[in-house]
């Protein structure tokens, strides 16, 4: 078991990659075997992620150096700097990878029925596994260039998956927009990496964090990193592509795209806190993030209320919720240089933001899955054409209600736990942040009530009288996420102590990340 955990960072990346290449071969023999391979490999990866998380909670940061005689041999004999590809997994990386593993498993199970009538399913699962691999790689890499490579893998496979249902014209448009936006954002990331490499001759994040000077070029690189990742997460005013792409993808992929946004948020946090943490003008960058976060929350929710397409409606809500996370972590960054304020409310604001990422990663894919179930049943995304669906879709109705109450921050559901942590901590930084947050929560509830009434309430409409509830695997996919919501609802403290605080502390404690690489000379 110890050997398995020692090798787990690379296995977590390699297993989905190997599965992606095996799927076309096995798919030629048996579709059931192909589907089993997808689910079994994701279950095993989830097991490894949890085992690694447990190990990190006991033994601290986990290092894996590729090609070295020992995984922790980060700097080869005769060298002064790390030159090999290094995977570095701390509390923050493993927290995001837990989310990634759970949602990707739920999405794969949901897909078994959701795309059962589509052609090219083998290609779908191959791309899905590549996307999963890209996400894990992005979270675990300790190297900037590999961060770019994994970002590209996740983006390209994501674009292909958005455009997967070629029978619909809007999927092609959505996929095209996603790939253009992703390619430009990735190019800016590559350009920023180039600016750092030109000055410091290294791509290793820990080493760069040690030597970075915060020169004019470093500031330009920071802006490029920040805005490129902000664009990928859908931060307002860079969100315009977001509903165009998210609303047309298969619902299981939309769930994956939500956590891809989280992965890009992780990259932005890693850059701001770990790479630039020692030199950054924290109050200024913190306020930039907070200002964009406020805009994201408010514009996202007001646009959501306006929507009549169920998936666009949910996409705008995804944007709005991301604002809470940016604000929580932005406040933490703004007071990073002041230990007293950081201890008083900064750490809690960051914990609230990070906790909200976890909650969002469960209720948002769940809501997208229910949107996909509505599309599966009615054949339309147009809410004006729906009504009375609760009569036939009992499971979907209950699961939609769980998601709705959670996203709206209604107690006792998990959305409230993270929101109260954000509200009470950011209030001490500036009351307007809390006030805006509460208004956005009220509008969120109002808009979800509207959608609930339109789709589920009322008498059965004649055109939908003959249908039946969505297939079992789609319900199982939704139940996995609902179970996660219930668990976090009941045990918020357990989750915060075990996963959220270690993740926030990993961001704050930049020296631990640096020392894990540069201090590991044998």
């Amino acid at each position, binding site marked *: 078991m110890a050997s398995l955990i020692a090798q787990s960072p690379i296995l977590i990346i390699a297993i989905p990659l190997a599965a992606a290449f095996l799927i076309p071969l096995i798919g030629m023999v048996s579709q059931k075997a192909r589907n089993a391979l997808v689910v079994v490999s994701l279950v095993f990866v989830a097991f490894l992620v949890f085992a690694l998380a447990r190990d990190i909670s006991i033994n601290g940061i986990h290092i894996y150096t590729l090609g070295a005689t020992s995984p922790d041999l980060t700097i080869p004999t005769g060298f002064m700097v790390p030159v090999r590809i290094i995977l570095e997994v701390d509390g923050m990386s493993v927290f995001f990878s837990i989310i990634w593993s759970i949602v990707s498993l739920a999405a794969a199970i949901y897909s078994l029925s959701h795309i059962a009538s589509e052609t090219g399913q083998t290609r779908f699962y191959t791309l899905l596994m590549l996307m999963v691999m890209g996400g894990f790689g992005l979270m675990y890499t300790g190297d900037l260039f590999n961060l770019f490579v994994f970002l590209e893998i996740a983006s390209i496979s994501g674009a292909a998956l958005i455009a997967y249902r070629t029978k619909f014209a809007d999927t092609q448009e959505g996929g095209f927009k996603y790939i253009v936006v992703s390619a430009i954002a990735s190019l800016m990331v590559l350009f920023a990496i180039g600016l750092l490499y030109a000055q410091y001759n290294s791509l290793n994040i820990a080493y760069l964090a040690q030597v970075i000077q915060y020169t*004019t070029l470093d500031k330009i690189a920071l*802006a490029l990193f920040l805005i490129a990742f902000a664009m990928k997460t859908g931060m307002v005013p860079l969100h315009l592509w977001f509903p*165009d792409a998210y609303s047309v993808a298969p619902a299981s992929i939309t769930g994956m795209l939500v956590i891809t946004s989280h992965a890009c948020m992780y990259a932005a946090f890693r850059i701001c806190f770990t790479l630039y943490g020692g030199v950054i003008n924290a109050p200024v960058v913190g306020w930039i993030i907070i200002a964009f976060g406020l805009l994201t929350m408010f514009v996202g929710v007001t646009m959501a209320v306006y929507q009549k397409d169920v998936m666009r409606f949910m996409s705008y809500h995804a944007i709005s919720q991301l604002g809470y996370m940016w604000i929580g972590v932005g406040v933490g960054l703004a007071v990073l240089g002041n230990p007293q304020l950081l201890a008083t409310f900064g750490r809690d604001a960051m914990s609230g933001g990070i906790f909200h990422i976890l909650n969002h990663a469960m209720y948002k894919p769940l809501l997208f899955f229910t949107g996909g179930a509505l599309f599966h049943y009615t054949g339309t995304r147009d809410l004006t054409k729906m009504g009375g669906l609760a009569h036939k879709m009992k499971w979907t109705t209950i699961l939609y209600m769980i998601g709705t109450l959670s996203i709206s921050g209604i107690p006792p559901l998990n959305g409230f736990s993270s929101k109260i942590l954000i509200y009470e901590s950011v209030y001490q930084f500036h009351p307007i942040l809390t006030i805006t947050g509460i208004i956005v929560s009220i509008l969120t509830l109002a808009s979800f009530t509207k959608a609930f009434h339109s789709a589920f309430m009322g008498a059965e409409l004649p055109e939908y009288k003959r249908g039946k509830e969505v297939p079992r695997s789609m319900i199982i996919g939704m139940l996995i996420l609902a179970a996660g919501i219930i668990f976090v609802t009941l045990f*918020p403290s357990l989750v915060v102590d075990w996963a959220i605080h270690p993740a926030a502390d990993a961001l704050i404690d930049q020296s631990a990340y640096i020392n894990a690489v540069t201090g590991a000379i044998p």
Partner: protein
Amino acid sequence: MKFILGSGYTFWNPLIWIIVFLVVMVMVYFFRRRGQKGYKKGTDQARIFLCGEEVPEAEQRHIRVGNIYWGFFETLKEYYNFILKPHTGIINDYILWFVVAIAITVIILLIAGLAK
């Protein structure tokens, strides 16, 4: 207690709320049980009275999404006219916003650096 989320000034215990919900549900059930027992489904007792007008069929009475919150959108018409403008659906415009955001962020960081 792993049920309680506390951070010095934040206190949150979901169990209290769950218990309160259960008590409220029991009370609702109790009041419902004490309701009018003479009610007969499917008779004239259950028919809707609409000032003597003919009542439409149940499926025609459903209020669709376009009719909900009409007053809200009417009041905020100017805000929505303003906010809908950038949502052109054209990818060139999206990239323009990206360039503008980068330019603003670079300028802020450089000016803040000079001030420091």
